[in-house]
């Protein structure tokens, strides 16, 4: 029987961690783009679009991410295409993070003081100008800490893609466990690697929140 050293385990897990990072980046950026679209639907004037965006968010926040992954995996197959795990994983995670980011950013836009809307309207600004010059710059500043905080949720969410067969850190942990019979060490290490990815983001989110809040209050 082959003997596995600790370095063998660590090396294999680190190699798989690339895919966790890549999938997180794709989901976060893709989710951000879809969320931008949804945000404008959600806070816009069109009643129907508002309705669609609202229930999109409700739907994705009210169902498990695992189920969304399963439905993407088997649902995309219904169009007669062969669905690789990475495609279903990316697709579901983008839609899922879009829902959460829309809700976070909507809160940020709505927390901009109402007088700002009225003031900019009284300066003769149109909707687009109000958004571009008055509301978005202020909302962006409020949005940074919770958005960074949500990136942690995305990284943790990618762990579920192992269940539909995408080989990232968690799946690699299972594979390495099956080869080495050392679940305690392997899953401990996997947890530590996730911690190493997520903790700096959580911490910076907290620090940013404190800093930006102070700046916000001094106005």
């Amino acid at each position, binding site marked *: 029987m082959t003997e596995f050293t600790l370095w063998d385990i660590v090396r294999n897990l680190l190699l798989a961690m690339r895919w966790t990072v890549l999938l997180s980046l794709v989901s976060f950026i893709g989710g951000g783009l879809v969320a931008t679209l949804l945000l404008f639907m959600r806070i816009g004037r069109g009643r129907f679009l508002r309705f669609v965006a609202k229930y999109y968010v409700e739907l994705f926040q009210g169902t498990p991410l695992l189920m969304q992954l*399963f439905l993407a995996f088997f649902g995309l197959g219904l169009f007669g295409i062969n669905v690789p795990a990475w495609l279903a994983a990316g697709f579901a995670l983008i839609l899922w993070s879009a829902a959460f980011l829309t809700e976070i950013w909507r809160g940020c836009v709505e927390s901009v003081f109402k007088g700002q809307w009225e003031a900019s309207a009284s300066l003769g600004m149109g909707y687009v100008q109000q958004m571009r010059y008055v509301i978005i710059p202020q909302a962006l500043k409020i949005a940074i800490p919770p958005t960074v905080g949500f990136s942690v949720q995305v990284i943790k969410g990618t*762990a579920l893609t192992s269940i539909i067969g995408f080989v990232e850190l*968690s799946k690699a942990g299972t594979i390495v466990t099956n080869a080495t019979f050392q*679940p305690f060490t392997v899953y401990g290490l996997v947890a530590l690697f996730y*911690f190493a990815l997520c903790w700096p983001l959580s911490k910076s989110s907290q620090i940013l929140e404190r800093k930006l809040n102070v700046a916000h209050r001094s106005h």
Partner: protein
Amino acid sequence: MAGRTYPCRPLNHGVRHHAFAGWRFIHSTERGSVLKYVFDYSWLAQYWPVFLKGLTITVELIAVGAVIGIALGILCAWIRSLGPQWLRPPVTLYVELIRNTPFLIQLFFIFFGLPSLGVQMSELQAANLAMIINLGAYSCEIIRAGIQATPRGQFEAGSSLAMSPFETFRHVVLVPSLQRIWPALTSQIIIVMLGSSVVSQIAAEDLTFAANFIQSRTFRAFEAYFVSTAIYLLLAILLRQLLVVTGRLIFPRRSVR
């Protein structure tokens, strides 16, 4: 799976199921026949007790997880904000570790990792423990925020009324803090309930496990997951309503802020 009893008849129940279930040649276009997927929910008539059983397990998991998890969260929040100094670093480590690792890995660590230390447990016990530990960490952070928002004068007012530190904490600090953060706690409980779908991966027989079981029997994967997703959505809506009503019953006095 062998040896487990399921509230439905086993294989070979008259309906032919195979890996291409659902795909039919439809003679509809002038170009000839087209391969199309036809949705079929007829298996529901036979398999709904499986969903029901899975649902009861999911409800049991979240009920136990929420009650004990929040109790653990209250204890940890007390330690981190008012408790003895020497206990704070380990509790902080626990909270940060849990909040920055995926629930799936926590579950695998408990179920597959701990037995090598001699801690054996069943799938359901492992799932329950993982949910308690997970919700304990998250609710600790939420409740701590509530406790820290308590004005300093409240503590002094409590002790000036000859209340013991424990009585002050229980009546003056904790209850208003919980009331303040109840909406956040409600959301977190629902997130944990939805997250519980991964306990199917250690073969705890929850709602997702039921869906996996049904799709492996009928090859109706999309339909099985679609129905279970709908059940999760309903459960999330009901749970939110239940928690809102519970909040109103526990905290009837609106004046406490």
